[in-house]
């Protein structure tokens, strides 16, 4: 609760206060700044701020001047550099947690976050969170580093957000993404498509309608199966990943990630809850709840998402048990008859 207050409520109130501040300041706010800073003819490079992106970020509510307080009428011709708020002013709790770690010596908030493009964790697809890390930690190097102790390191690095293993989160959530075949080649790769691509496939009904047939913003197992078996969507598949359920910036690594228990020994009951992440027009994602236990379905629920140890299907277990018991029929049945007729073989 405390952390929510510091991290969310306080900045929000602050933001709202500023938002409702009268005239002069307001006149100078976002729309005004973006006349120049959203226009490629006026500015370029890092000075350019995509208006549509900024407007949908959690920071839009702050406007520009909250963070660039020292702005005055001289701008852009003034001599002094404009002030920039530091993240720690508002994100005290998360900020402090990060500043305590070793990693604070290697990267600042700004190295991972562009203040004009911030997104909450649940407004991201999942794997895209790694774009931050890849700026400094390259994929091949990471595969080599983790290969030393991690089976199938290439698979883990290709499928999981780094922060699922490298934070103090107590749990994880399963997030499904629609991925699309990249080209017509045989064995082509499947990648995360952008909003436009999916929008073209789904047409007017909207991306969610690709899977959510009845339009109730809830995905049932039946809808998943229908999607996975629909020949029309042959070039689309569902990829699964696991993201931390709590936001933490403690990048040190817990033992349960090292000995695999966090994900693989947590049992099927930990795989009940899952979400589908659907891209929004603004570049963010929205999460749609999926029916409980859908990822545990034996075949067509999520054909590409299988985690050894945890997503075993109960029906397959039963079939396997029947097969193994079938193997006992011969020794037990025959053995019994053999015992009963043992006299016949005493020569």
């Amino acid at each position: 609760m405390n952390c929510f207050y510091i991290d969310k409520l306080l900045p929000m109130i602050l933001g709202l206060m500023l938002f409702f501040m009268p005239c002069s300041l307001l006149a100078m706010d976002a729309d005004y700044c973006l006349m120049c800073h959203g226009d490629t003819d006026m500015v370029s490079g890092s000075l350019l701020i995509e208006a549509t992106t900024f407007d949908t970020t959690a920071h839009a509510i702050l406007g520009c001047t909250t963070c660039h307080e020292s702005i005055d009428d001289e701008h852009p011709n003034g001599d002094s550099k404009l002030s920039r708020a530091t993240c720690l002013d508002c994100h005290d709790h998360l900020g402090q947690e990060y500043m305590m770690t070793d990693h604070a010596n290697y990267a600042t908030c700004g190295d991972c976050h562009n203040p004009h493009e911030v997104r909450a964790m649940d407004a991201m697809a999942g794997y895209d969170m790694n774009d931050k890390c890849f700026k400094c930690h390259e994929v091949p190097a990471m595969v080599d580093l983790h290969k030393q102790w991690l089976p199938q390191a290439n698979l883990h690095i290709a499928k999981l957000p780094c922060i699922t293993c490298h934070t103090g989160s107590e749990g994880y959530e399963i997030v499904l993404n629609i991925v699309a075949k990249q080209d017509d080649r045989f064995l082509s790769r499947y990648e995360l498509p952008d909003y436009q691509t999916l929008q073209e496939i789904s047409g007017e009904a909207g991306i969610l309608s690709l899977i959510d047939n009845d339009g109730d913003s809830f995905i049932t197992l039946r809808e998943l199966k229908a999607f996975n078996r629909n020949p029309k969507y042959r070039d689309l598949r569902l990829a699964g990943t696991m993201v931390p359920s709590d936001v933490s910036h403690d990048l040190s690594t817990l033992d349960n990630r090292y000995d695999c228990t966090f994900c693989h020994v947590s049992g099927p009951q930990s795989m009940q809850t899952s979400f589908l992440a659907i891209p929004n027009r603004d570049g963010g994602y929205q999460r749609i709840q999926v029916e409980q236990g859908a990822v545990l379905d034996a075949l067509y629920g999520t054909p590409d998402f299988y985690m050894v140890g945890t997503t075993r299907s109960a029906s397959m277990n039963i079939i396997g048990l029947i097969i193994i018991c079938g193997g006992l029929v011969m020794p037990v049945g025959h053995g019994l008859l053999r015992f009963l007729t043992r006299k016949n073989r005493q020569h």
Partner: protein
Amino acid sequence: MSENKKVYLQPTPVRIWHWLNAFGIITLTVSGAQIRFPEYITLLGNYKSVIYLHNTAGFVVAISFTFWFFYYVFIARSMANLYVPKVEELKTGLLRQIKFYFLTYFLGWENPHHPTPKNKFNPMQKSAYLAIMFVLMPLVSLTGIFMTNVEPLRGVIVMLGGLKILMNFHFLLACCLIAFLPTHMYLTTLGHTPLEHIKTMWTGWEEGEEEVSGSEHIGTVSTR
């Protein structure tokens, strides 16, 4: 208790292969069970080590399978003869063998099949081994190799219907192999003494029969 002739039935490479395989398959079974049910089975250490063990045992069995295959096809050149039942065997031999195991054995009759180096399996064994060695083993190894290389082989896996289908297939194939184990071990006790066949697999030599019965020896010269 007249004659007690011995037949050299299992050459050394075959015996090495057999015990390597036996050990490998038992390791795979136990580690596989732990990989699937890690909350309940913790016999072989932590999850990571059990994965490594399963993968290693899998590769050992797959490689030893390959060697076995080449040994019989190219060196011993007896693969087809030993493992592929002939038409005639299927027509009469199979029935006769089934009749023996499920009827006349209980009446105390002799096994109609007498193993010789060139024809060591009876028609029932041949059919069973054919299914196991030429269908189950290659498929379980192949799916296993796919699963240890998910990322590089992703495209092929998608083409096959997805990771889940592959996993379930591997699991069910493994269950079939496991189901065969009790039957296999039980049948080894059906010799003249319960340990006779097991000794053969260890020493290579099969005891000749004490009683000579009139049954025919398919395709070989009798040792008596």
